[in-house]
Structures are given as structure tokens and as C-alpha cells.
């Protein structure tokens, strides 16, 4: 079973969608217990084409077009995991994970604890998340904090193709349940992906990554905001501000070591996410940074994110989503104390 991209390995740039596809393919080649399951993941290859061609190459036993029921997808994935499989579930859009919320929160997250460690559930739940694609309701949400609140789940978000390729493989080989968020508006962004390199050398999945080093302010982000924040750092550079950009990657557990070290260096911290600021990941980080870096802070920890509203109609979503200007506006405020 050769990968269609095998001939052009290292040949360069892949989209995030394609990089995830290659990562899934690698994981399936390496471990016959890895299964892919979800709505339209088979012949269609998923609505974002992340599972394109996998059913053709690995068969209907391993790439399963499921009945249209998210609770069923996750619930049966748990059963398959109990039987030794490593299912990768696709939830078609962020807003459709909620029928599976009970299975994820009360079963998937707690089985290890309930069984005193006798049972591990290596289930990955992939969720395309975030807005900016002009979609109708329920197709643009950022529910990551709801999952980060639940002990027993690992919650991660990839920010670019290279990371997507490595992180999906790491998530699959992880013995804990992983909620894997994919920034859907970045599916067609391209970067270099080293397909030959293997993941052994890749950054561990629970480690944050410093993308831009800087001295004046720490900008924490993940998923779709990674690109925005790197662009913000470049723009700020022109104004003489040195921004350190960190892609959190893991939202639970948080890599607080990397975060604290950076904030102690810069003295300022801004957290950026598309999700509503209220009750979001940013609040958790702000509390921890305030506690652990208090004497290093020049300003309170600030947040740029969605408002405390449901995701608005797409014609005004640009006003809801933090963009380059909004991020820089909040960064400016961090210099105003």
C-alpha cells in the first residue's frame, strides 16, 4: 500500500487537509488497529477531504461511513477501543459534536479513572473548528474550552500542515482520548511537510511551540489564530514592538512551563482565540500566569477573542473574529499600563 504522495516526499508544500490525510495514512499503515469512522469519510473522503482515498486503499472495514449519529460514532468507537482498536472519529463540523457530548464527557473521559487504570481508550475525535468560512449556523464554532474543562481528555489544536501531519499521528498513538481540533479555514493553507522524517523527532504533542521569539510581549494562540498572530508579530516589528508568538498546540494539559518562561521574559501576555473570551481558555491561562508570574508582569494578562454571543451570521463574522487589527489593538493596550 504505497502512499500516492510517496513519489514526491519532501517535494514541498502540502495543504493542511492533505497533510492530515498523509498523517492518517501513515498511522493506518503502521498499525492495522487504526480505524477511521464518521459521516461521509468513505467514498466522499470527508467534506474537507481529509480522509480522501483512505477507504479505497484500506477498505470499508477500516474506513467506515457510519450512520448519521454522533453519539453512536463516539460510543461505538469506545467499544472498538475496548476491543483493542484505535478509532479516529471524524465529527463533520464543530457544532455537531454535541450529540456525542455525553459519550465523550461521561464515558470516554472517565473510563481510565473508573477502571483504576485497567482500561485505556486510545480514541481520537477529530473536529474541524472555527469560523471565517461564510457558513450557516453551527458550522463555525470553537467549543474547545468545553472539552478542556473535562479531566481525562487531552485537547489539542494544530495550526499548520507540518504540525497537523505530526500531531495527528501522535494523537493516534497516544493511549489517552484526544480531542483533536483542526482549523477549518486553514485547511487550504500550505507549508512544507517532511513526510519522510517520521514523527519520532517531532515536538511532543503536549508541548507548546515558540514560532517567533520576542522580548516585549508574549502572544499565546492556537489553531486558526496562529497565522494571524505571526502576521501580527511581523506588523508590530515595523512599529518597533517585539512580540513572542507561542502556538500552544495542547490546550489540555497546558504547557505552562513554556508559557511562564516566556512571560517572565517579556512581562506581558496576551491570549488570542476565536472562541468567546467568556469562560474560554484565555481565562484559565490568565489566572495561572497572574499567579505564577505576578512579579514579572508589567500589565494584566489581556485576551482577544470572540464576544459573549452565539456565533453571528456570516455577513458580520469578521466583526466577531479577532483579526490582525484587533490583536494589535489588544497588544497596544498591554503597553498602556
Amino acid at each position: 500500500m504505497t502512499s500516492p504522495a510517496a513519489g514526491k516526499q519532501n517535494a514541498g508544500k502540502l495543504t493542511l487537509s492533505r497533510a492530515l490525510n498523509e498523517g492518517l495514512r501513515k498511522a493506518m499503515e503502521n498499525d492495522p488497529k487504526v480505524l477511521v469512522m464518521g459521516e461521509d469519510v468513505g467514498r466522499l473522503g470527508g467534506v474537507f477531504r481529509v480522509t480522501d482515498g483512505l477507504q479505497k486503499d484500506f477498505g470499508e472495514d477500516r474506513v467506515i461511513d457510519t450512520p448519521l449519529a454522533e453519539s453512536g460514532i463516539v460510543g461505538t468507537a469506545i467499544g472498538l477501543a475496548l476491543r483493542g482498536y484505535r478509532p479516529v472519529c471524524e465529527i463533520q463540523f464543530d457544532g455537531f459534536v454535541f450529540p456525542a457530548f455525553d459519550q465523550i464527557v461521561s464515558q470516554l473521559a472517565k473510563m481510565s479513572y473508573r477502571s483504576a487504570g485497567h482500561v485505556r481508550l486510545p480514541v481520537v475525535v477529530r473536529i474541524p473548528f472555527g469560523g471565517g468560512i461564510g457558513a450557516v449556523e453551527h458550522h463555525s464554532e470553537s467549543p474547545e474550552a468545553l472539552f478542556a474543562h473535562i479531566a481525562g481528555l487531552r485537547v489539542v489544536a494544530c495550526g499548520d500542515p507540518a504540525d497537523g501531519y505530526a500531531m495527528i499521528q501522535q494523537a493516534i498513538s497516544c493511549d489517552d482520548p484526544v480531542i483533536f481540533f483542526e482549523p477549518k479555514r486553514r485547511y487550504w493553507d500550505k507549508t512544507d511537510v517532511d513526510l519522510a522524517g517520521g514523527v519520532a523527532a517531532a515536538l511532543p504533542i503536549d508541548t507548546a511551540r515558540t514560532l517567533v521569539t520576542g522580548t516585549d510581549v508574549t502572544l499565546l494562540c492556537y489553531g486558526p489564530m496562529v497565522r494571524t498572530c505571526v502576521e501580527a508579530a511581523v506588523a508590530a516589528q515595523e512599529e518597533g514592538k517585539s512580540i513572542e508568538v507561542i502556538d500552544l498546540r495542547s490546550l489540555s494539559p497546558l504547557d505552562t512551563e513554556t508559557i511562564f518562561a516566556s512571560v517572565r521574559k517579556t512581562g506581558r501576555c496576551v491570549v488570542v482565540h476565536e472562541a468567546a473570551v467568556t469562560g474560554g481558555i484565555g481565562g484559565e491561562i490568565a489566572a495561572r500566569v497572574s499567579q505564577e508570574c505576578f512579579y514579572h508582569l508589567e500589565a494584566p494578562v489581556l485576551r482577544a477573542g470572540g464576544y459573549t454571543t452565539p456565533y453571528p451570521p456570516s455577513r458580520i463574522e469578521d466583526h466577531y473574529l479577532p483579526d490582525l487589527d484587533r490583536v494589535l489593538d489588544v497588544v497596544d493596550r498591554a503597553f498602556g499600563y
Partner: protein
Amino acid sequence: MAVKAAGQAASPSRSHDEPPPTPQLIQLLTPEGERAEHPDYPLDLTPDEIKALYRDLILVRRIDFEAIALQRQGELGIWASLLGQEAAQVGSGRALGPRDMAFPTYREHGVAWCRGLDPAKLLELFRGVSHGGWDPKAHNFHLYTIVIGAQTLHATGYAMGIQRDGALGEDGEAAIVYFGDGATSQGDVNEAFIWASVTNAPVVFFCQNNQWAISEPLDRQTRIPLYHRARGFGFPGIRVDGNDVFACLAVTRQAMQAAREGQGPTLIEAFTYRMGAHTTTDDPTRYRLSAELESWKLKDPIERVKQYLIRSGMAQESFFTGVSAEADEVGIRIRKACLEMPDPDPLSMFDHIYAEPSGLLEEERAQLAAYLSSFVSEEAAR
């Protein structure tokens, strides 16, 4: 890995006590446009009533075409076409009384039309100007529900309210809820069946089996005809030719009247076909054969009514050209409405979240207002 997961056949003796009955399809108008009779579903329509149904079918298809064109031209974000399902929607929609309540999915543009909702309201949603925003009570037509199956429980609860209000009887009220073949797999839909059965609620479950749930064919959701499922839940199930507007009208009328009179729920499986893509972002050539579409084109829901009207001499050429001209007018009107639709005020995103204004939201509204005006003053300064 020896076991084949897909296509496994349980031994027939294990899966059924008795051989399954061959599916019965209620049909009152054949694809060729011949009138058929059914002893349980007598239907007497005047020529004017038949012409009115034909007009509905044509106008609804025209609205759909216009919306697809608007999407292609970038005026709508997305559109979920009802092409092929006009008869199921118009037949059932015209079976409702003004006091009945309808709960749609995202594809029920034909039902919306029958309830009197301005099609421009639908365009608002698909353009991204609102999440729907109409008052469900204005036309007894609930908001479009995008989360698959959720509305089946809402309709059932609404029907339980009808019971408690004592609004049953010969001229009582009932609810009808629309959903697809894919939706029948959802827990919510199965729970709705149980609730409706146990409470004997006045609700009609109208399932448009259009054979596909995006790329998944019916056999990913069921191994028995969907209408057979009703029996297990304890109420009647009927399969109707979903491309036959007469049959959809007659069957829905009867089920709604039974519900109004306190005889409980019915599942109607309208056997039809999604002739277009799932939505404008979908590419069906990736997963289905065009031969299937060709065979369903022969069962077109509109052509057969036209043939019937012509053969029976009920309508002349002038009638058809008149309807077609009216359809063009409707197309022009909704296109204009769409193009003239203003984008919402960004600050309106803070409206209607709670019954009363909330302090935090008002603060955020003020923040956004200040932020937006900072750009205006920057521009003025230039």
C-alpha cells in the same frame, strides 16, 4: 481482521420472525401522469385545486433555481436545493391547516412557500444575514433546524402541548415535523418516536427519504424500509410516492386528521430523490452514478402533473405559459430582494441573546462600537 464488517448478512431466520412484507407505495398519480385510485386514500380535487398544486410546484422549483444561481454568483453563502422533492413538500404542505404547526429542516423551501413565508427570508439565512429570524407563530412555520433530527423532539413536545390545551378534535390542531433518511439514525429522532408513541401525541413524522445523506446511501442508515420502523415504536407507518403530489397530499391529510382527532402519531416515508447536490458546496459525482439520476428524472414530480392536466383537458397552453411567466416574476422579485439586502449592523450581534439586556453584553457592544468608530476617525484624519 477476518470478519467482513460491511454487507454481512444475518441469517434470515434470525433477523425476521416472518418474511418482511414487500414495501407498499401509495401512489395516486403515476410517473406517466395517469390517475390511480387507492381504496384508503380517496382524493377528489377540482381542476382549480390541481392547477393550484401545479403552480406551487413550478414556483417552488423556480425559487430553488434562482437561489442556486444567486449562490453561484456569490450572493448566497450556500443553498440546499429541494430539486426533486417539490411534490413531497407541496403535497404535505398543502395538507396542513392554518393552525397546524410545521417543523422544518434546512431544505423545506416548498413547505415554507405553502405556509406563506416570504422566500426572501430563506435567502437571508443562506446569505448569512440572519440565522432565520422569522417569527414561527406568524405562519405556524418553525425556524429551519440544521442540527440533524433535533426538531423531531420539538414537534413532539409542541404536540404534547396541543393535548394539554385541549386543542384536539375534529377541527383541532396537530404538528408535523420534517426530516431526512439520514436523520432517522439520530438518537433524538428515535426518542421523538418513543415520546410520541407513549404520549399518543398529535404529531406526524414526515420523512423525506431522498435516498442520500450527503454521500451516504440509504443502506448506511437502515436495512428495512424506513416506514416499517414505526411499527416497532407502536404507531402506523406509510410509504408514499414522494414524487406524487396527490398521494403526498392525501396521505398527509389523513395522518394529520387522525392526529387532530386524538389517534396519535403517524410516520410517513415520502419515497423521493435528491436530484441535485446535497448543497451547493457538494459534488455528487464523487459518490453516485449519473444513471441513478437519469432514472429518477423519469419520475419527475412536476412533469406528471403537467401530463395529467393536458390529457384530462383541464388546462390549456395559456395556463402553462401564465404560470411560467409568474415563476419568472417570482425569480426576479427574490433576486432583487437578495441583492438589496443590507448587511446587518455589526452591533446587532449583541441583540436577542437574553430577554433583558445584560451588563456584560452591553459593555461588549460599547467596546465594539468604540473600536469601529476608531477606524472612522482614522479615515477622517487622513
